[in-house]
């Protein structure tokens, strides 16, 4: 029987793959459903929640998830009821999250800007535990299953939400589902790259895939592959260049996206068309 190595680097490697799959998948929906601002706000909500956890000596991960849910609840359903545009809500929530995070951190004088908080801000690959891996694998399996079963509804909503509603699909339900799943994925990704950089993991792989592909079915396969590849390349770069892991991953991810824009056949066609 082959045992997996659950050492630090093994866990780092595994989490790069799992987070790459999760953010690559969810990123497609976040980008195509125009939930980018929401994804951004939720990542900071997760940061504020983690800060609250640190300040109150509770599990930062649990607090981060709860806060991300709270932000998702504010942005999704409450914005709908209050008839406020999502942009309005996210413009309010983003600075509020940051303010709350720093208040939580300074509220209890015993906890200053220590490594625990730095971990939440910038990630800490060494603090990824076996339990985190179990959560990531479970979430991967659950997310893939959900996407498999409701793919056609999500596909339709990504194309045109109004038309999807006109075809009898409960678009609100599925949009909220994506927001909630994105919140959990964001929270689990905190340890890899931290709250300040997590958004790049959601946005970049999907946007890169969209530069080349003309079939959404291929985008949903390729985006996670890009996420995994850039995460692993970033980890490799940080090892050899002696730089922080989170920043390296985001740098690699962003460079790949920038390169994809430059060489995108779609962009060339648009330019030629002009």
């Amino acid at each position, binding site marked *: 029987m082959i045992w997996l190595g659950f050492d630090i680097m093994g866990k780092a490697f595994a989490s790069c793959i799992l987070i790459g799959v999760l953010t690559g998948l969810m990123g497609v929906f976040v980008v195509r459903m125009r939930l980018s601002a929401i994804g951004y706000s939720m990542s900071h909500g997760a940061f504020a929640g983690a800060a609250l956890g640190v300040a109150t000596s509770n599990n930062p991960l649990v607090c981060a998830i709860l806060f991300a849910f709270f932000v998702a609840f504010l942005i999704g359903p409450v914005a709908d009821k209050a008839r406020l545009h999502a942009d309005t809500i996210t413009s309010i929530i983003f600075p509020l999250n940051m303010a709350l995070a720093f208040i939580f951190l300074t509220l209890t004088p015993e906890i200053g800007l220590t490594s625990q908080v730095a971990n939440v801000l910038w990630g800490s690959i060494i603090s990824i535990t076996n339990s985190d891996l179990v959560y990531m694998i479970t979430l991967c399996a659950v997310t893939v299953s959900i996407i498999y079963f409701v793919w*056609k509804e999500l596909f*339709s909503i990504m194309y045109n939400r109004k038309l999807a509603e006109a075809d009898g699909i409960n678009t609100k339900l599925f949009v909220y589902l994506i927001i909630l799943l994105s919140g959990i994925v964001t929270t689990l990704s905190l340890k890899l790259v931290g709250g300040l950089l997590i958004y790049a993991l959601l946005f970049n792989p999907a946007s890169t895939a969209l530069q080349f592909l003309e*079939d*959404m079915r291929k985008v949903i396969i390729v985006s996670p592959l890009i996420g995994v590849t850039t995460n692993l390349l970033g980890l490799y770069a940080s090892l050899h260049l002696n730089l922080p892991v989170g920043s390296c991953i985001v740098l690699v991810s962003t460079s790949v996206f920038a390169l994809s824009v430059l060489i995108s056949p779609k962009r060339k*066609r648009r330019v030629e068309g002009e």
Partner: protein
Amino acid sequence: MNNRNTIINLDNVSTVYEGERRAALRDVSLSIIENELVYVVGPNASGKTTLLETINGLLKPFMGSILVSGLNMKNHGRRLRAEIGYVPQDFMVDPGEPYLSIDVVMMGRYGKIGVLNKPDERDREKALDSMRLLEIDELSQRPMGKLSGGQQQKVMIARALAKEPKILLMDEPFSNLDPESKRRIPELISRLHEKNRFTTIVVTHETNRLMEACRRVVVMDNGRVTADEAPEKALRALEAGT
């Protein structure tokens, strides 16, 4: 009118767009009989699109009620929309959009297929049949963004037809078509309307063979129904501005 065959009934319906103060639909009462073919005409901003979207439940009226097949649209909207084919006025997509035209047509059937269920071969065949009817089946594997405006519009019509709807709502469905298609597709819709007996409401500026088949034209102006009669009389009323 035989009220037992009424499939759509609007009763004093008023609708206002979010953020607007002026109602886009005002006190509209309208009954449409099953299998009827109705044209809706009127100047720009007269409320034609609003009427279709209100019937379809995409816009919620702040006053009045809408019954479709005897069910209140407010409470049964999703279920009813699974049986209503809708061809929107705005349909153009960006050139880089990653959706194949066959997939866009299939989307029309998703509401009917239901959550958790997967589309099967029959659904795909229905979608392809619709595309064949509109002579765009050879475009099934092309991305939507690479189709012309007219082709995209045909895809939208095919999407609505693929649903095998009981009610078909079409908002300016021929505006982007080439002259030949403008002649043939209304004929096709007319034939399908006769054959499948679905109730059809068409919003258009154009007179064509489909109009020849309809017995009723609703004229709208400023959010209200100003005329609701036989085509000749209604069009005269429209020209007169009454």
